[in-house]
């Protein structure tokens, strides 16, 4: 199993009273809440944390993209990946660039190829549609989200795999000369991850026999993780092949301390801030028109989903959305989940909400010492082995 350390890089110093005035940490939360000196310290602290995880034996590190919010401060994840590329030795995963939000998806083909060449083939390339609130923040029409994603993906894959220059003539993107330099280091292209919170359309598309991309279930109850990974396996079978563990991944926040009780106590305020303040948003902000298919939206309306109440850490642990406890507890829970669900990629979110530096570093140490080595077996492919 491949185990990566994942960081959202939140604005961890946020004044939590912002919810008294604003509906969400996204779109409408004024950026006057951002303090430059705190931001400076946070960015450098978070990079230190990922570098530490890589050094202590995680199989690599992972960053992602979010815009105009306090939940994750990486509007340009390539900058963080670039900073990490020369200070880490394992996989470098960008999960991922939000393709429909970009006017020119060729910049992703270029940026990812640069990272892959700099690292000698350690890049994992993630593609996402961005989350709903980012369509409010970017102005991109959410009713074009699915079509733009597919077309941008096709453009990037062709740019990586077909000799240039060639003419790409799509509905949304038309380039007379596609001829990206550099070409990727890994051939035919870096591994592709498709993170999602569970969408049958996305799973069907990722599992298609022509793609076989790794599907990554992000922050979800364990029941949803199991359900969607089974869906992927079923689609693979329909397509005439068996999905390998490498095609399945789970991204989950994890906190380890010396004992179960201590872990709960230390994680609680930070996990609850993450879920109840940084993540939460009104349904209109989360799901703009067209972001989900009509059928999925009807399901959401029927279930009144997206309008959840505040959750306690105990709720989050009970649903398997967070894994918190002693090294033994966390190791056993993750090992059981792996045995039951059969994923071959595990992305551990080692910092969440306002979790401070000292506790994050302790979390990384305990995971690296007591959890990662045990879970890793059988040994994963080594980053850069494509070389």
């Amino acid at each position: 199993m491949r185990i990566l350390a994942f960081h959202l890089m939140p604005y961890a110093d946020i004044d939590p009273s912002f919810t008294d005035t604003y509906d969400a940490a996204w779109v409408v939360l004024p950026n006057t809440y951002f303090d430059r000196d705190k931001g400076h310290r946070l960015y450098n602290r978070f990079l230190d944390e990922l570098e530490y995880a890589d050094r202590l034996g995680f199989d690599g590190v992972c960053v992602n993209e979010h815009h105009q919010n306090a939940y994750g401060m990486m509007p340009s994840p390539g900058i963080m990946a670039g900073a990490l590329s020369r200070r880490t030795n394992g996989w470098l995963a960008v999960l991922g660039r939000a393709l429909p939000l970009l006017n020119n998806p060729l910049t992703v083909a270029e940026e990812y190829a640069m990272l892959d060449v700099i690292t000698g083939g350690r890049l994992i390339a993630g593609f996402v549609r961005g989350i709903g609130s980012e369509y409010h923040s970017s102005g991109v029409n959410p009713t074009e989200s699915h079509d733009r994603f597919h077309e941008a993906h096709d453009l990037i894959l062709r740019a990586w795999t077909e000799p240039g220059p060639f003419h790409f003539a799509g509905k949304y993107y038309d380039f007379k000369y596609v001829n990206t330099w550099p070409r990727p280091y890994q051939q035919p292209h870096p591994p592709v991850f498709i993170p999602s919170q569970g969408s049958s359309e996305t799973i069907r598309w990722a599992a298609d026999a022509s793609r076989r991309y790794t599907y990554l279930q992000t922050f979800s109850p364990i029941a949803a993780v199991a359900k969607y990974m089974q869906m992927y396996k079923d689609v693979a079978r329909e397509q005439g092949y068996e999905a390998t563990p490498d095609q399945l991944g789970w991204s989950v926040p994890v906190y380890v301390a010396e004992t179960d009780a201590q872990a709960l106590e230390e994680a609680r305020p930070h996990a609850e801030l993450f879920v109840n303040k940084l993540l939460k948003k009104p349904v209109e902000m989360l799901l703009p028109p067209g972001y989900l298919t009509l059928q999925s939206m009807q399901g959401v309306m029927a279930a009144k989903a997206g309008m959840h109440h505040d959750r306690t850490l105990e709720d989050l642990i009970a649903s398997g959305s967070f894994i918190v406890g002693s090294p033994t507890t966390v190791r056993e829970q993750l090992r059981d989940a792996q045995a039951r669900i059969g994923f071959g990629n595990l992305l551990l979110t080692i910092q969440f909400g306002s979790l401070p530096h000292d506790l994050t570093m302790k979390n990384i140490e305990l995971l690296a010492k007591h959890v990662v080595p045990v879970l890793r077996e059988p040994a994963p492919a080594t980053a850069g082995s494509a070389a």
Partner: protein
Amino acid sequence: MIVAGCDVRYLRRGSGPPLLYLHGASSIAAWTPWLEELAATHDVIVPDHPGWGRSATPDWFDNIHDLAYFYLDFIAALGLEGVHLVGHSIGGWIAGELAVRNTSRLATLTLVAPAGLRVIGAETFDIFLASPEANVRAAFHDQRFADAQLAAAPTTPDAIETFLRNRFATARVAWQPRLYDPHLAKWLHRIDVPTLVVWGANDAILPVAMQAEFVRLIPGARAVTIDACGHVPQVERPAEVIAAIADHTHGVAA
């Protein structure tokens, strides 16, 4: 009826010169009292736009221009001449785009709180970030109308599907740029039929400050501003709107 490959549904009642009414962000499910008033003197035709209500969503449905061309085809397909074209909000935007392209089958144009222009300083309400209730409340000056509409909010699966399709179609044409076409202002001078621009003085969705810009850009256009009225004058102040339309269309033939 199939027009331009789209199965389009419409209501039609009354007799007299044809009056084509283009609805706003919400389709019109059933005949209303104010439509009945118009039908006393006109052959009133009320389609669901392609993508909205009970009409199909055609493959070509990408932007407001597609709807303008569609309605030129629709008018021709019904064999209408001397049409009094009335559009509300997004429907007013479509009507304006249509009239910029071709007025040969139009007798008059009436725009009721139309979208379509950007007016510096007149910030529009964000209908996509607001909750359904907040949208209804913003649409009316007299909140009793909002209360009545909220009491009839969609609950059946069919009504919810229509609500979601209308919302999708509205975003399709109006998300970006938000509720306007940067190229429309350049060509409104082409409109050569008598034009009336009706606005509620207290419109909280599209500010009444936009009215003067339409009147400035459309040659000979007249303004009627209705006091104590929000974004849906035909519901909130139907008598004034009907009178204004009757006055505008009376005696005007193609």
